[in-house]
């Protein structure tokens, strides 16, 4: 619910800054390693957006896969089964490259 409110706040502010009166679509980038359930997010967003310029807006969710980079050998790879070890050299010094996103990417307005 708090995340849906965050999305709505960003969408309404951005629309107002651009003199838009209606928000048709909100596109999100959601990392694989986040605790977002798109169906519940849509439900919360729809409830919060009622009686605002975002009422009826479509929430489009693009899931960003979890990938990492090994700080020892420099290899980049997909992180499968949440295993944070380098598949090349087995190092545990793995940093997340993508998969933690929680972003409003763009809006479709009129």
């Amino acid at each position: 619910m708090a995340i849906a409110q965050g999305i709505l706040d960003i969408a309404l502010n951005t629309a107002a800054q651009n003199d838009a009166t209606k928000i048709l679509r909100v596109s999100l980038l959601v990392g694989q390693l986040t605790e977002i359930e798109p169906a519940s997010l849509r439900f919360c967003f729809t409830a919060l957006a009622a009686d605002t310029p975002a009422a009826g807006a479509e929430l489009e969710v693009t899931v960003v896969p979890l990938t990492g980079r090994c700080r020892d050998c420099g290899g980049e790879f997909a992180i499968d089964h949440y295993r944070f070890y380098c598949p090349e050299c087995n190092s545990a010094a793995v940093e997340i490259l993508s998969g933690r996103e929680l972003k409003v990417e763009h809006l479709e307005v009129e």
Partner: protein
Amino acid sequence: MEIKVMANILDKNDQIANHVHHRLSGQGIFVLNLMGSPGSGKTSLLEQTIAALKEEIHIAVIEGDLFTSKDAERIEGHGVPVIQINTGGGCHLDADMVQSVLDRLDLDKLDLIVIENVGNLVCPAEFNIGEDVKVTVLSITEGEDKPLKYPLIFKQASAVVLNKTDLLPYTSFNMQAAVEDITSLNPHVTLLPVSCRTGEGLTVWYDWLKEQVAAKKQLKAVNAACK
């Protein structure tokens, strides 16, 4: 018309969390965000910890709860300052809730603030609240499958407390699988098997915690010297 936005949804929360962290770091206070399922033993761990350490460490507790003050009443019985935050149905604490109660604590007199989050393995993991570390409590009776089902809360934790080890003989909990899954997700985590009921393993937890609190004090002293 399409508008490119690229805004982080949690930016506002993270900014407030940074303020909270900065303010408490300035006082040399170590802040722990205690997370885990309802019934995993977060409050029991806290009660044992306060009873064991309150003579050597000045502790305060912020209790997050949906509607009640039951946990805060348990903590109050141990004679340390406790503040209740009721989220009114909200499934996690956020940084603003923590910031809004800080003035009610005498920060000059504290070494450690433990913030007990709402019992939940999902949302608390997404919201920074100004802590130095997150600690996740997983109890034996929840099953060893939880780390991979709720990976973020185990990935974010500096330490995972495996509570209720006294019940191991009565359950089919596979300790080896739990340890493998947690360390695969989080290779640098500190794993602490304990039983809050029998006291087994608690000394190792106390030592870990005391070390963190001391390191924070030292950091404050170093920063003061550098100025």
